[in-house]
């Protein structure tokens, strides 16, 4: 251990750790605008400066390693003045339209300026020409607000391995963005929005759909239905002062009704439907491979995460056939809402407006994909992020905390626990196995509390195997087969598991979620998501699952009903038309 003195207090820390980490261990908060948890420090913002005795100048604490006996001052007039100076310089280049900025009251630069007592714009400096990139359906970049902290670049490159954003140019003229001022829609951006999730200011945000949704709600000719993804209920509360990991399912339903939606439904319903289709697809692929000895693409990859789909289209087009043909739960919902439900409710499908609330920015992209019009209309009209829903609730003055619990409408409002866990990394896999195992053996998955423990948690790449024994006669070909599954979250980890597969490692089924932690850590979730918060949301989701009677997708009565009344059976012709799709390479 290394001994250092922080503000005269002795602290023992891991050798080689940075001053920033040492201070955090001692419970001392050093402000930063560029640091990203668990990523290599950049030292870009210079806000985290501290005094080190004997050093020629102040140092950036995030990039300076501790040394034995180091005497560090994190809080003195000198240090505060220096930080204030840095923030003043950042403000001199920042389009500080705080009053009209979407990050007003949720901006790290704004809070830090207040904290440090910046009460004046001290330097009215020259500014670069402002450039707004709203080329994609999901994200808007505003160079005028960018403070070049490079957090977006860190997550885009080091965490996601996408590499759409990088520091361009030099000195005063430097900016962060795609090569040669290209727009995001011209590069390999997967629209995951992790950049928007870490941006300290309003330089990258989701493309808002709030006004479109208000217009639809106000329009008396429209029948507006809303679906909410499972990850919302474990995070929305954070926008209203609840502790991370507080489940607010019932209050969320009440709030959605008060906002004026005609029906409040659950994406969980179509998550269960996804399991029926995707599980069947997997079993059919295995049958083709093992019984019919046909050439078939295995392992099967999950297809719920639109960022992952786009990533595969760009970087791994050769495995597109391995990706399940199932649409994501969001898109299945849109397709059945404008067919099955419209007919049931006696509403003209052209008047049905489907709004989804998603923890995700890529879902905005997914909704407008040309493949997603199988109902005869755009299946999903508008997509709100968790943050946007919170803003809408605030706009109406609803006292969220005072709301009573309500339940979703029926049908399409019921979801099993297996659907809830779609929000977590490893959840889709576990949900699929709960159902597939029971279909094949006729028995419930013999695991403690139905959990496939090895695929739970924040490990980047997780693997599990499950021996299938005691098969029903029609699934006899699976007797004794060791089902090998893999799970990765964060696209950097997706790359690792694909490379492992190419290296010869055997898998039958692989779940990929674009964002770290899964959807609970999505690019549209309340800021700022740390691993601690991811864990809490994950726990909340498992709690929701375990609290339900209904924990397996195939036991969801509403799912059984839609097959009886409309879809016939999993993988039927009509199911294919509405619930499945195909993707094409974007490799160039």
């Amino acid at each position: 251990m290394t001994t250092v003195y922080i503000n005269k207090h002795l602290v023992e820390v891991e050798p080689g750790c940075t001053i920033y980490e040492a201070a955090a261990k001692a419970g001392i908060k050093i402000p930063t605008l560029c640091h990203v948890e668990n990523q290599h420090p950049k030292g870009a913002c210079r806000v985290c400066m501290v005094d080190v005795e004997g050093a020629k100048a102040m140092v950036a604490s995030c990039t300076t390693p501790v040394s034995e006996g180091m005497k560090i001052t994190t809080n003195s007039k000198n240090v505060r003045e220096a930080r204030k100076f840095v923030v003043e310089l950042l403000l001199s280049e920042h389009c500080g339209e705080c009053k009209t900025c979407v990050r007003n009251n949720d901006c790290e630069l704004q809070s830090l300026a207040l904290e440090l007592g910046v009460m004046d714009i001290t330097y009215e400096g020259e500014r670069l020409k402002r450039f707004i990139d709203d080329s994609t359906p999901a994200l808007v970049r505003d160079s005028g607000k960018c403070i070049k902290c490079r957090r977006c670049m860190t997550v885009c490159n080091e965490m996601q391995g996408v590499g759409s954003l990088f520091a361009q140019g030099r000195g005063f003229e430097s900016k962060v963005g795609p090569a040669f001022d290209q727009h995001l829609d011209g590069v390999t951006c997967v629209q995951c929005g992790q950049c928007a999730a870490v941006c300290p200011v309003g330089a990258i945000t989701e493309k808002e759909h709030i006004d479109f949704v208000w217009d639809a709600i106000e329009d008396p000719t429209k029948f507006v239905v809303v679906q909410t993804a499972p990850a919302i209920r474990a995070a929305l509360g954070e926008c209203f002062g609840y502790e991370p990991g507080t489940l607010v399912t019932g209050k969320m339903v009440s709030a959605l009704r008060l906002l004026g939606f005609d029906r409040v439904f659950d994406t969980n319903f179509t998550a269960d439907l996804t399991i029926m289709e995707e599980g069947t697809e997997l079993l059919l692929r295995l049958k083709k491979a093992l019984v019919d000895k046909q050439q078939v693409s295995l392992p099967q990859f999950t297809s719920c995460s639109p960022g992952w789909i786009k990533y595969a289209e760009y970087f791994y087009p050769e495995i597109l056939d391995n990706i399940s043909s199932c649409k994501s739960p969001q898109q299945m919902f849109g397709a059945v809402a404008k067919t099955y439900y419209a007919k049931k409710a006696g509403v003209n499908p052209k008047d049905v407006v489907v709004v989804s609330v998603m923890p995700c920015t890529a879902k905005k992209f997914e909704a407008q994909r040309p493949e997603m019009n199988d109902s005869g209309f755009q299946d999903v009209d508008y997509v709100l992020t968790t943050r946007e829903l919170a803003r809408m609730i605030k706009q109406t003055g609803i006292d969220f905390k005072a709301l009573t619990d309500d339940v979703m409408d029926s049908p399409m409002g019921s979801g099993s626990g297996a659907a809830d866990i779609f929000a977590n990394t490893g959840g889709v896999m576990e949900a699929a196995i709960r159902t597939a195992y029971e279909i094949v053996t006729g028995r419930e998955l013999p695991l403690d509390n139905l959990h496939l423990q090895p695929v739970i948690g924040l490990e980047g790449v997780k693997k599990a195997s499950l021996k299938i024994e005691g098969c029903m006669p029609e699934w006899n070909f699976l007797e004794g087969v060791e089902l090998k599954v893999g799970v990765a979250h964060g696209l950097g980890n997706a790359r690792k598991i694909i490379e492992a597969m190419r290296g010869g490692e055997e898998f039958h089924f692989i779940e990929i979620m674009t964002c770290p932690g899964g959807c609970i850590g999505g690019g549209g979730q309340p800021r700022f998501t740390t691993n601690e918060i991811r864990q809490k949301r994950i726990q909340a989701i498992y709690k929701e699952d375990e609290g339900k009677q209904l924990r397996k997708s195939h036991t969801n009565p509403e799912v059984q009903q839609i097959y009886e009344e409309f879809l016939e059976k999993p993988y039927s012709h009509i199911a294919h038309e509405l619930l499945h799709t195909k993707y094409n390479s974007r490799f160039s």
Partner: protein
Amino acid sequence: MTNQSNVEYQDCKGNQIHEDELYDRLSIIVKSQRTVPGALIPVLQTAQNLFGYLPEKALRLISRELKLPYSEVAGVVGFYSYFSTIPKGKHTIRVCLGTACYVRGGQDVLKAMSKELEISVGGTTQDRKFSLEVGRCFGACGLAPVVMVDDETFQRVSPSKINDILNSFE
């Protein structure tokens, strides 16, 4: 980013080389550097030596072969003033803006030159005949303002003399 296609290349002996040949050469070099850490900058230097500038196609090839995001390659190119994505003209005009030339009207000469050629500093004319740069003293202050075109020096240049200078080059 400019993407010129009708570019002619010459080797050191003045023989014409086809563009494809240069890409073949670049490809071989890049492939040999695939596993070398920090290969990007030397590879970019090589490419610039081959083409005289860094065309988009070469940067795409480098990005693909070195498995580096295109945004990162562009970031490095943009960071170093040594690298240029604009092709050089047949002749390089350098207008001196050193102290002596500056006080004797170098700025006016530069403005006029820029207007005449319809390019700004750092640019190349559409026909790729001239590139325009700024010089920082050629050591001929007694002759200010000075303009150099390739190796030739022009003294006491005024905006009215510019056409004669340009016309003397093919």
